């Protein structure tokens, strides 16, 4: 029997440079829900997200995916995970298409040319597949980076400030994309300084430093 996917934090704690950022965080995220991680600068939002991905070691407490510690099932967990950090993970000297097909290949998928075109058009950067990334603007690069989400069937999205450098239409489109992902049984952990409504589902709020 398959256990329903849940992301669980139990007694999670973290410190940086000897300063305690947060401790004793308990939280359960179920399929179809999203966790909104809020808090001022420097309260440890990015640190928390890097711990959720498994990039940073967990100092105190545990993070469980489907009831098992994420560090005990790294490969299986990475199959379910799509992370988007502050960096776009795009190489400047190769084309948009080469970048996207590489990141898709990393998660084991090969989007066709038409699919890639469709996704890029949806993200407002259609017709730029063959352009070098270095010739795109900051916002366009962000859009290309975000389009990875649509080319990856991972169940858990971990998004660090995804709305940064996006215009109003971009914010709306991303919110719709996340809403569709949640409707399909996906989950998301999102940090953002702007309060954004995503779908009809109210966010689970995790306020750090409060």
């Amino acid at each position, binding site marked *: 029997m398959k256990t329903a996917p849940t992301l669980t934090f139990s007694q999670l704690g973290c410190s940086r440079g000897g300063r305690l950022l947060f401790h004793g965080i308990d939280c359960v995220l179920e399929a179809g829900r999203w966790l909104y991680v809020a808090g001022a600068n420097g309260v440890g939002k990015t640190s928390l997200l890097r711990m959720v*991905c*498994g*990039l*940073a*070691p967990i100092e105190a407490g545990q993070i469980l995916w489907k009831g098992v510690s994420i560090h005990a099932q790294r*490969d299986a967990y*990475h*199959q379910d*995970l799509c*992370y988007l*950090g*502050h*960096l*776009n*993970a*795009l*190489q*400047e*000297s*190769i084309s948009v298409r*080469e970048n996207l*097909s*590489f*990141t*898709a*290949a*990393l*998660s*084991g*998928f*090969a*989007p*066709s040319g038409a*699919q890639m075109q*469709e*996704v890029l058009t*949806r993200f407002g950067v259609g017709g730029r597949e063959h352009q070098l990334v270095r010739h795109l603007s900051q916002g366009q690069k962000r859009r290309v980076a975000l389009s990875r989400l*649509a*080319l990856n*069937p991972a169940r858990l999205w971990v998004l660090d400030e995804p709305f940064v450098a996006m215009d109003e239409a971009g914010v709306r489109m991303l919110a*719709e*994309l996340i809403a*569709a992902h949640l409707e*399909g049984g996906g989950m998301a952990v999102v940090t953002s300084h702007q309060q954004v409504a995503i779908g009809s589902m109210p966010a689970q709020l995790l306020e750090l430093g409060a």
Partner: protein
Amino acid sequence: MKKLQLRKLGLASVLLAALRREISLAMRQKGEVLTPLMFFVVIASLFPLGVGPESALLLRMAPGVLWVSALLAAMLSLQRLFAMDYADGSLEQMVLSATPLGLLVAVKAFAHFLLSGLPLVLMAPVLGLQFGLEGRALGILMLTLLLGTPTLSLIGSIGAALTLGVRGAGVLLSLLILPLYIPVLIFGAGAVEADAAGLGIGGHLSLLAALLVLSIFFAPLATTTALRISLE
């Protein structure tokens, strides 16, 4: 918004895609590939000019000089092995991907060999002629370089991963890695001399091959661990 139906890839195709990306990145920055090669040519050419045209001395020095130049040239390109992927976040994606990181690292080391080791192997006989090496010696030199340079890439990847994001990484990388290159240097350069002295070279080649096999097995493991630590 409908969900896309994506075609699944086998592991071999994933690794092939990673190799293709390494090569197309290198082709867009040809200078990066050519600089170590030119460095190799210049260093190896300075010796005949500096030592003078005494052919017996040059002949004796040749294998050692060519091998040391090859080590230094390999060091030069190693700094960039992970640096670009680290800077733009691609490395995070590789670490977090469903593809085993050890295999991706092995692909990167193999691409490094193709783009920096193999050109050295092909260039070596031309430089060997400057030192008065003859056909048979040139052949042995190429063979040892062919067996040795992949080991240089693999061992070097450990150092490149350890020094990621460190200031002054280049010098630190040399200090970490050059001592580990000593066995490859001894058996690589030694083979040509052993043959000139009329001894067999089977032992030297076997040891070079053994070093290669060992590093194929252990270097990706060590590199993965180092990468995870560097990204923390």
